[in-house]
């Protein structure tokens, strides 16, 4: 499923600008410990986290995840958003908790497999 369709279906707010969202999302990872994300995240995963600092951009970059969903209504500082835009990492905001967002994403991606 394309990221742009995930954004629409989950009602996510796109924080970054100038990034093409027409790329594939295959699965997801929910984690706030960066080394675990580095160990487990796969290319084309959507990463759901409540971390909001600069380092999430680098972790997303080296793992080539499809994007980062910040749960619980968290909005990072503008510097983080600017860095993500520069690096081509979509930052998306959700009002719901990580639990709810991951449940919705799982159901959405599973329905696409049928």
């Amino acid at each position, binding site marked *: 499923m394309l990221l742009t369709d995930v954004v629409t279906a989950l009602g996510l707010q796109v924080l970054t600008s100038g990034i093409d969202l027409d790329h594939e999302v295959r699965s997801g990872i929910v984690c*706030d*410990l*960066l*080394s*675990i994300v*580095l*160990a487990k995240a796969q*290319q084309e995963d959507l990463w759901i*986290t409540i*971390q909001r*600092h*600069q*380092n*999430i*951009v*680098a*972790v997303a*970059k*080296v*793992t*080539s995840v499809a994007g980062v969903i910040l749960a619980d209504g968290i909005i990072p500082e503008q*510097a983080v958003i600017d860095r993500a835009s520069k*690096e081509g990492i979509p930052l998306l905001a959700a009002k719901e908790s990580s639990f709810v967002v991951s449940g919705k994403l799982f159901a959405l991606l599973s329905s696409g497999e049928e």
Partner: protein
Amino acid sequence: MSANLTYEVHAGDIEQGGSASAALKSELRKMGICEEQARRVGIIAFEGEMNLLLYATNGGTLNAKVTSEAINITIEDTGPGIDDIDLAMTPGYSTAPDWAANLGFGAGMGLVNMQRNSDFFEIHSHTDKGTLICCRVNRRKNHAAD
């Protein structure tokens, strides 16, 4: 193909954390290194960069030498060194301060991630002198089992 890329990492500069490894991965992709190899180098570099930033008294250096055979990554600092390398290599063991743990560091997987993504991994450390970590990611598949 050959290239020598060096990045200085400053102690405690958390705002810039990950910028060297992100830049390194971008450079490798521009050079035509495949995503899988660039990703492995990026993970090694990120963990090494964060160790320099969080633990090394004076920061340190991240270097990547690219040849047609392999990408050799070295991470070097001048202290304080690691007292017990076996303990530091134990999954889950961490000495991250609380402020770093609150930012999602301190999973105790840094060195383990570096080793798992390397075809060759070596760590030398002397208390009060510093730590040198050497990692290699092979570019040719038939070397992957070295």
